């Protein structure tokens, strides 16, 4: 019994209860919320019955890196969830780019090309295409082939036109060989991405697909 009283006394050294508005303060005599803990708190799980009103001015996302709730800060190096970056590759030959290693870590990021432009080295966008790379009007056009792929643990980029050569539109004699490619990339951090979804191949049987459906990956 004596021991129990001692325990109670220890508890009450830092516990303050405001009877008027039922606020409880621990190590504070002026609790400003229903429970106000001025010190370390440990819990095995945390529930937010009502997380409160929407934060209309931005606020911060919360994250945990140890056992604490911390602020998610996109400006810290290697911590951003969405990383938007423009990649400019110069000295590009008429055949375009077949494999450029961005050195962006494929285990940490998912990289998507949002859009791109092909330019002459002076920034002019007067770039023409020669299908068949033969200097002849073939009445054909090559598909854009601009995308990212994973190789040896990093993201690589290809940027060209199928079976075509880049040309200087003003003087399309096939001798210009110094193009520039701008790529606007989004690198999503692995924390919010799924990349190991299987590729899907479908034979449309010579139709345009309007009466068919793709197989949705499991889980969606």
């Amino acid at each position, binding site marked *: 019994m004596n021991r129990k009283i001692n325990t109670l006394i220890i508890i009450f050294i830092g516990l303050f209860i405001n009877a008027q508005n039922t606020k409880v303060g621990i190590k504070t005599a002026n609790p400003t919320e229903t429970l106000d803990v001025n010190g370390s708190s440990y819990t095995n799980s945390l529930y937010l019955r009502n997380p409160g009103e929407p934060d209309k001015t931005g606020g911060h996302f919360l994250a945990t890196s140890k056992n604490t709730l911390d602020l998610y800060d996109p400006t810290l190096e290697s911590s951003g969830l969405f990383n938007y970056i423009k990649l400019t590759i110069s000295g590009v030959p008429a055949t375009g780019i077949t494999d450029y290693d961005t050195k962006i870590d494929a285990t940490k990021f998912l990289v998507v*090309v949002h859009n791109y432009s092909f330019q002459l080295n002076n920034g002019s966008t007067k770039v023409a295409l020669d299908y068949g790379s033969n200097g002849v009007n073939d009445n054909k056009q090559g598909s854009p082939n601009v995308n990212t792929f994973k190789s040896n643990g990093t993201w690589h980029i290809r940027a060209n036109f199928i079976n075509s050569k880049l040309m200087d539109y003003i003087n399309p004699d096939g001798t210009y060989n110094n193009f520039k490619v701008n790529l606007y990339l989004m690198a999503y951090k692995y924390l919010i991405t799924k990349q190991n979804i299987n*590729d899907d191949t479908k034979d449309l049987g010579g139709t345009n697909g309007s009466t068919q459906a*793709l197989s949705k990956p499991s889980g969606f």
Partner: protein
Amino acid sequence: MKKITTILLVACTSLNISAQVGINTKTPQGTLDVSGGTLIESYVIDTVNSHTSGNYYLLTRSKDTTPIGKVKLLDIALRNVAPVNTYNITLKNVSQDDVVSLNTGLETSKYVVAITGAVFTDATPGVNTTTSIKSFGAYSTEITPVTTGGKTYNAVNLSFQGAGTTSAQNGTWSLTLCVYEKALVKDWGTYTGDINSSFTGISTNTPIGLQ
């Protein structure tokens, strides 16, 4: 003073006899249940605003716990679907170069879908001879809604508009779909502009939230 003593006594009773403590509630649903705001001034939620470093998890408030609102980690290793997903699709034996409203099976109410890196191979988009001056078709990739069985899905559209292919050969499209959880994305739909045959223009109807 007497009142305070009583409350203290009640607090003592709770703290020592029951394993659960309620503040402003008689039916605590955890070891400590605070029916009201909780301010923790250091360590757990730090008023000095410490930032995450190194490896971290984002936190979410779960909707399917009892009681509702347990704070959980967003651990994509344990989920089939992440906020951001990509997968590759190969469409073979396409009618020349046209793909029209091909259903992805992904509902518009749950996912925002975007196409990236669509490449056409195995056939060559040709010249469009039905126009008075022969023309090449414009490379075009779009996601449009398609309704079937009362539900609306995201559908894929790919083409070199009106071009067809050399010898009407059927081709192959290879593309990457980016699938975003709707909970993450504000889908603003479409807004329009008209530059009246000029080279420049200024939007008059940008959604307020984007201005």
